[in-house]
């Protein structure tokens, strides 16, 4: 199978390279405003804008067609301004949809997501209807708008060069967005994180909002023409979300989202030309098929996002559960130390303890975890095993003393200040004992005037080497 994939990849031509470059430029151009949409919690607005661009384009097309048919415009001029007018139409409708959503939300007091849904579906349905109704005049194929024509990107080159036109347009959109972000970085940042503060500092949040909508719409149309609306929707928010899982800084988030967008273009196209033939031939379909690059890029960026969701060092599911597991293990190990200390305290110090006794010491956690915590203690040298019996080593003894001290100090403190009945002191101390730092313990001891006994009448152990006082 790997051989097959490699075989399909070996057919890589300059056409594929241009497809990837164009797609990467489009994806990167979309990813930049996507970051801001994500942080402003307007991700679904991006989805709405990409739907609304359709009626914008159709209306622009109809308008220019009528102008030409009515004799207001020559044919050459019509050809020349067709593209600018697309951009203008999509931008107008993008801003219009944002305004309408706001109106419906404020005037009609409709919940925000419902008003967004009502507005963009209406506009999209209108665009669809217009497109079908004037199909003779409007030379737009809905499938083409949806999936894009990235596979044939090299057919249409920029005059005088052999660079695809789409690559130039998307590159320009990317550069424009970059320039805007660099210029207004401070304002964008502050209005994304704290709109109220931005307003008090004189950054007009409303203007920022509509400007963002307009810029996003323009970017969407630039990408639309070449890569279709699917890609646009996928590339707006998902790279930004991937970056958001990996970092906390806005600047690095922007950078990572660009990398993710470019990587998903490469990965998506590679998947588009390799996977379908390989899988389709297995289930009895002809092997000479390829899938839409735009669609596969969506899948690719989804895979990158899932990867980040699991593997991110700080926010990943895996690393977080690893951290949680380590904490749980530490707590169990602490509990074992405390148990050994108390057993020593109650009986004679030399009486040997078997591992099984510890096990029965009602840890309240699974056997596997208890065992692992125990092995960890042995490995750390806090607990020693001699011929089947275990005992605290001097190091373990002092660790255990610290823990029990923390437990009993807390009990004394809670009893003194909160009047909790004696029978219920243990429960809160059982939780607090694990995170009272030595300094906090000393403060507690000072506050209680160095008590000797806890509320149950058991001695509070002394620390080995009391930490130096503050400022010493």
């Amino acid at each position, binding site marked *: 199978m790997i051989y097959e994939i490699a075989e399909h990849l070996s057919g890589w031509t300059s056409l594929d390279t241009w497809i990837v470059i164009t797609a990467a430029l489009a994806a990167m151009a979309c990813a930049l405003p996507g970051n801001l949409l994500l942080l402003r919690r307007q991700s679904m607005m991006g989805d709405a804008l990409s739907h609304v661009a359709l009626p914008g384009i159709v209306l622009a097309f109809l308008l220019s067609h009528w102008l030409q048919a009515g004799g207001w415009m020559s044919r050459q001029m019509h050809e020349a301004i067709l593209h600018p007018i697309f951009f203008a139409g999509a931008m107008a409708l993008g801003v219009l949809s944002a305004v309408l959503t706001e109106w419906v939300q404020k005037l009609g007091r409709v919940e925000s997501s419902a008003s967004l849904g009502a507005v963009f579906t209406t506009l999209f349905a209108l665009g*669809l209807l217009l497109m079908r109704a004037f199909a003779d005049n409007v030379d737009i194929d809905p499938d083409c708008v949806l999936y894009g024509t990235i596979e044939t990107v090299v057919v249409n080159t920029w005059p005088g060069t052999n660079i695809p036109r789409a690559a130039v347009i998307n590159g320009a959109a990317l550069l424009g967005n970059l320039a805007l972000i660099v210029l207004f970085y401070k304002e964008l940042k502050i209005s994304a994180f704290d709109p109220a503060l931005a307003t008090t500092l004189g950054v007009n949040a409303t203007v920022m909002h509509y400007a963002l909508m307009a810029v996003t719409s323009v970017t969407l149309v630039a990408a639309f023409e070449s890569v279709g609306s699917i890609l646009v929707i996928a590339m707006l928010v998902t790279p930004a979300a991937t970056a958001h899982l990996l970092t906390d800084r806005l600047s690095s988030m922007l950078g990572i989202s660009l990398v993710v967008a470019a990587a998903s273009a490469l990965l998506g196209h590679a998947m588009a030309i390799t996977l379908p033939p390989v899988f389709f031939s297995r289930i009895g379909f002809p092997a000479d098929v390829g899938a839409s690059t735009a669609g596969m890029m*969506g899948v690719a960026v989804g895979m990158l996002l899932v990867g980040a969701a699991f593997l991110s060092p700080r926010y990943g599911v895996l690393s977080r559960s690893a951290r949680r597991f380590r904490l749980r293990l530490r707590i169990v190990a602490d509990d074992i130390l405390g148990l050994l200390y108390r057993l020593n305290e109650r009986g004679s110090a030399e009486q040997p303890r078997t591992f099984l006794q510890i096990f029965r010491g009602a840890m309240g956690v699974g056997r596997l975890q208890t065992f692992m915590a125990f092995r960890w203690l042995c490995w750390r040298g806090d607990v020693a095993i001699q011929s089947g019996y275990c005992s605290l080593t001097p190091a373990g003894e002092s660790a255990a003393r610290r823990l029990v001290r923390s437990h009993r100090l807390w009990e004394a403190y809670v009893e003194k200040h909160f009047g909790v009945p004696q029978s219920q002191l243990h429960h809160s101390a059982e939780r607090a004992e694990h995170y009272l730092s030595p300094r906090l313990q000393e403060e507690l001891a000072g506050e209680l005037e160095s008590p000797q006994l806890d509320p149950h009448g058991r001695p509070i152990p002394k620390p080995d080497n009391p930490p130096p006082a503050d400022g010493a």
Partner: protein
Amino acid sequence: MKSNGVSWGAFLLLAMCFGGALQAQEQGSEEFSSRVLRVALLQDYNTRVVMAGTVMLGATSGLVGVFMLLRRRSLLGDVVGHASLPGIMIAFLVMETISAGSGKWLPGLLVGAMASGFLGVLCVTWLKRNTRLKEDATMAIVLSVFFGGGIALMTAVQKSPSGNAAGLNSFVFGSAAAMTAADVQIIGLGAVGAMALCLLLFKELTVLCFDEEFAAARGWPTHTLDLALMLLVVSISVIGIQSVGLILVVAILILPSSAARFWTDDLRHMAWIAVGFGGASAYFGVLISALFPRLAAGAVIVLAGSVLFAFSMVFGARRGILRRWRIHRRLTRQVGRHDLLRTVFELWEQSGQPPETPLAGYPIETKALLSARTWSPAVLHRWIKAAAKEGLIATDGSAARQLTALGAREAKRVVRNHRLWEVYLITYADIAPSHVDRSADAIEHILDCELLEELETLLQKQYPEMEVPPSPHEIENQ
């Protein structure tokens, strides 16, 4: 009640305009009007079939949409719609693999769509719970990634030369006209099933929408109920895909229910209205697209819903813009009248005349009033005109205006309310005399009789007579 009547009248008017527009389309053509009748009265078998399926679907989606709206999850339908595409394609591939040519068996495709739509919803929940991403981002991500995967599969399937895949892309934009009786049976069964489930769980879902914690505290399985609601949304979206298309399917969930919200505050009424709106928009959508074959039914159904929504937003009897605007205007007028009368009273009080001078007949001087308040001349004239209309201020031929007896009584009442509240605040809420004016300004307009009586009993000792007490603070002229 009056506003209700106006709204329903406007509703009828809208319906008539609608019919009129249809007529005007091909005026004088006998053929066209007979066609309208034929379609509207369901005389064609084909129309009947399509109409039955779509109207059932519209009605059920209205009902389910009500709960989604109240749970603030309206856009989840959008996610489900887009996320069902890969399921349709995979189901097609699986069925083709099992036996060639059977790939477009609708129940199979719908099962695939449901499975992947539900998977999409689960992904949204999982991402929201386990990562730091917010709900809107998770929805956008799941929607786009699933849709991208679906499109990739679809293009691959369509490029395969077996040729059987031709109709698959009709799911994207929908094709109600192509529904067969067998399809309608499935859609109808699904819609009736969903409707029954919804009605059966009506009470439970209501509590879930309004107070989830309460439901959980009463020991109801909120998680299961939530899942049931999701299942309802998924099934509605999936059976709606064929007629409305997966991009627009969210509209039939959102529009009828949000439109119904403008008419009532009672959930049961809202549910019935939403059912009616959903059914009506489906009916008109199919009707129009049957008359004009070029108009895709899905888009027209959505637009019919949009018209209903816009209409309800303006004329809605409960939360419509017009009604709220009327209430707001009434309140503004009342506040303006009170302020005017109180200012006149205060001017009279300050004018240094002997207290025997009657308040009635006190001249209204625009200049003095303007300097006492931050009114613009236009606003002041509006209030004076309104007061004159109500007989509080009289003009005796010349340009001079004065308070009437009625106006004097009303002015005394207003000032009395204001000062009673001020004294109350000073005595009982321990607020400095210099600070009470502002808050009394806001409350004086809405003091009702009961509250006034209470104030009077409370302050009896200080002001035994039912006269206007003196102002507890200096009255400053702005």
